[in-house]
């Protein structure tokens, strides 16, 4: 009788224990842009999440991973901050992720630090971001990381003079600074540095100035989406016939070339993810994406960074369980390294920032698409901004 009772209790306790463990839900708040002219960012991130969950299911060891979406409507830092507070206080999320926009990511730094919520940056690429909060980790790239190699390549490959044209906000200024630094170090000369407001949609006045100055190349930065497409299209119609090269970073993506078509051929860019990457995970992601969203769907940096960011969360929940301490989570995420559609995702533990192989690629026709084809590679680039601004 007594044995039975003990056995009964033990089974009960075991059931209760597993019951508690398996009933947990891990909430991930995603702050991204789902409306307005930049809604593509949010859509690509949402697809990245859905493709990842198709590959790995929506739960880890019985813990459901629930995504809570919030729309920041674009580069609107105050909105992002309000949403972060709301996700933390009301939704009680364990992770925050997303952030197409640097200003938005910078604006939530104080909030996630105070609340100790691990936050994964899925795009925002200004160098300084991960320094602003010990709870930030980044799976995308940094602009200095891609702009610097572009400057080096240009200086070494016959580009003597260049004009830089950027949209003026934190990542643009980063891109300008580090392209010029590398370009000058390699013997190049910058004729003029143009800064355009983020809201610019008509680039012709700026391009008129560039045409008159006749540089060998134009280096551009614009936030991915309509404004970058505008710059690429204007280059294709005005500057390319005059023999002025277009140099850029991650704005030249297959997804942005749709409107330009063959006119975009010849544009040179640096990037951490090239659509034509020949690795298994990349091919699998593309195949599932086409199956889920149709033939017109195109993968981009937002989708890849999201895919990798989800992998981070899944690994954390698998190893540390659904209710780990934020410090432990950050410790684990800062030391990650795993296969990614870009090749491999590696985090620099000291800066909690991503280390990328940077491809140098050219827009070309390949397999019936106008896309990027990599022709050179700079391996394991750490963020040059951090090296130029050592932590105190």
């Amino acid at each position: 009788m007594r044995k039975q009772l003990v056995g009964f209790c033990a089974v009960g306790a075991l059931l209760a224990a597993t019951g508690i463990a398996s009933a947990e839900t891990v909430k991930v708040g995603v702050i991204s842009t789902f409306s307005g002219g930049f809604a593509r960012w949010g859509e690509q991130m949402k697809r990245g999440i859905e493709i990842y969950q198709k590959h790995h299911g929506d739960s880890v060891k019985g813990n459901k991973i629930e995504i809570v979406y919030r729309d920041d409507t674009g580069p609107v830092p105050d909105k992002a901050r309000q949403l972060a507070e709301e996700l933390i206080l009301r939704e009680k999320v364990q992770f925050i992720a997303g952030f197409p926009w640097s200003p938005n990511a910078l604006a939530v730094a104080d909030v996630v630090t105070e609340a100790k919520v691990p936050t994964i940056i899925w795009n925002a690429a200004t160098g300084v971001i991960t320094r602003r909060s010990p709870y930030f980790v980044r799976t995308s790239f940094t602009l200095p990381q891609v702009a610097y190699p572009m400057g080096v390549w240009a200086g070494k490959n016959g580009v003597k003079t260049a004009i830089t044209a950027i949209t003026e906000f934190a990542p643009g200024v980063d891109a300008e600074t580090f392209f010029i630094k590398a370009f000058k170090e390699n013997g190049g000369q910058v004729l003029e540095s143009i800064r355009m407001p983020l809201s610019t949609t008509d680039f012709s006045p700026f391009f008129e100035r560039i045409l008159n100055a006749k540089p060998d190349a134009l280096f551009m930065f614009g936030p991915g989406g309509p404004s970058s497409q505008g710059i690429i299209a204007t280059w294709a119609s005005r500057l390319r016939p005059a023999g002025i090269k277009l140099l850029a970073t991650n704005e030249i993506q297959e997804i942005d070339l749709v409107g330009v078509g063959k006119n975009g051929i010849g544009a040179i860019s640096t990037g951490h993810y090239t659509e034509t990457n020949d690795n298994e995970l990349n091919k699998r992601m593309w195949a599932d994406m086409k199956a889920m969203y149709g033939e017109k769907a195109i993968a981009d940096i937002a989708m890849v960074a999201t895919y990798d960011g989800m992998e981070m969360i899944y690994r954390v929940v698998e190893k540390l369980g659904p209710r780990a301490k934020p410090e432990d989570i950050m410790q684990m995420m800062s030391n990650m390294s795993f296969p990614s559609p870009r090749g491999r995702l590696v985090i620099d533990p000291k800066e909690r920032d991503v280390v990328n192989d940077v491809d140098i690629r050219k827009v070309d026709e390949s397999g019936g698409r106008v896309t990027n084809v990599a022709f050179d590679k700079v391996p394991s680039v750490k963020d040059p901004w951090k090296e130029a601004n050592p932590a105190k």
Partner: protein
Amino acid sequence: MTTLPTRSGLAELSAQGRLGLAWHALPWVLAFVVFYMAEGYLSLWTNALIMILLTLSLDLALGYAGIVTLGQAAFFGFGAYAAGLFAIHVHNDPLIGLVTATALSGLFGFVTGILILHTQGVTLLMLTLAVAGLLAEWANRAYEITGGDDGLQGVRMGPVLGLFRFDLYGKTAYLYSLAVLFVWFVVVWRIIVSPFGRSLDGIRQNPARMRAIGTPVWWRLVAIYTISAAMAGTAGALSAQTTRFVGLTTLSVLVSGTALVMLMLGGTRRIYGAFLGATVYVIVQDYAAKVNPFYWMFFIGALLMATVLFLEGGLMDLGATVRKYWRRAPVKKP
């Protein structure tokens, strides 16, 4: 607006009827109920209080004095940047910052008021838009000062009165904003019932006649525009201090438009219209964005259309409108 019977809000303010003062205590009692009930939602409600203040400032200029303006964002943003920059470069005490930002916004309103208030109607509307546009463009270009599209980063606020720290849960921010709103509410009340307020009523209805009986119309308009600007500046400063951030959006036409929408939603020239309109708008917006983060704008649009089509005098007229339809209904039957 002109088809409505003219209301000055006096009726409500002097209501000493059955309920009298109890009615006036209601919003403030509710505000305290919210404080104790809405844990986790306080930053949303703080935002509502700030929007009430902004809408009330618009009601003074547009509702009472009839100054057609879409430039209220200029003063809101001006106050926000003033408070933010003051906290970064001068002193981080919230009250000193708030008073400074309010005074500077008032001054800005006074100067621009002198420049543009001799015009009327569409011209005036364009000029208020131009002022807001110029200021927004300046803030965009002055990257070194304002941070441009990155926004004003690094605002650190000291504790209110040296005692109450701004906490993550927004309790301090809420009570602080509520106190400031109450002070401005009393000021607005005094203005509306004063002879000065009555003269604004007259100016809105017939400036020529007011001039004929010796009212200095232009100066009265400049005065109320200045007060309205100072008030909008306070709202902006509150926003900067409670969120510890200022973005370019504080200067966008959208802010002016939203305030106008809130005012129309609640009802113009009804001192509590601003309270009702702003609160309902903020709640609906929050709820819609939660229910559907992808198409939430649709709900806001639908609400506005419904209000404009069916509630001419805004939500404050809900009771009256329902009664009107009620009475009309039997007449329609053959």
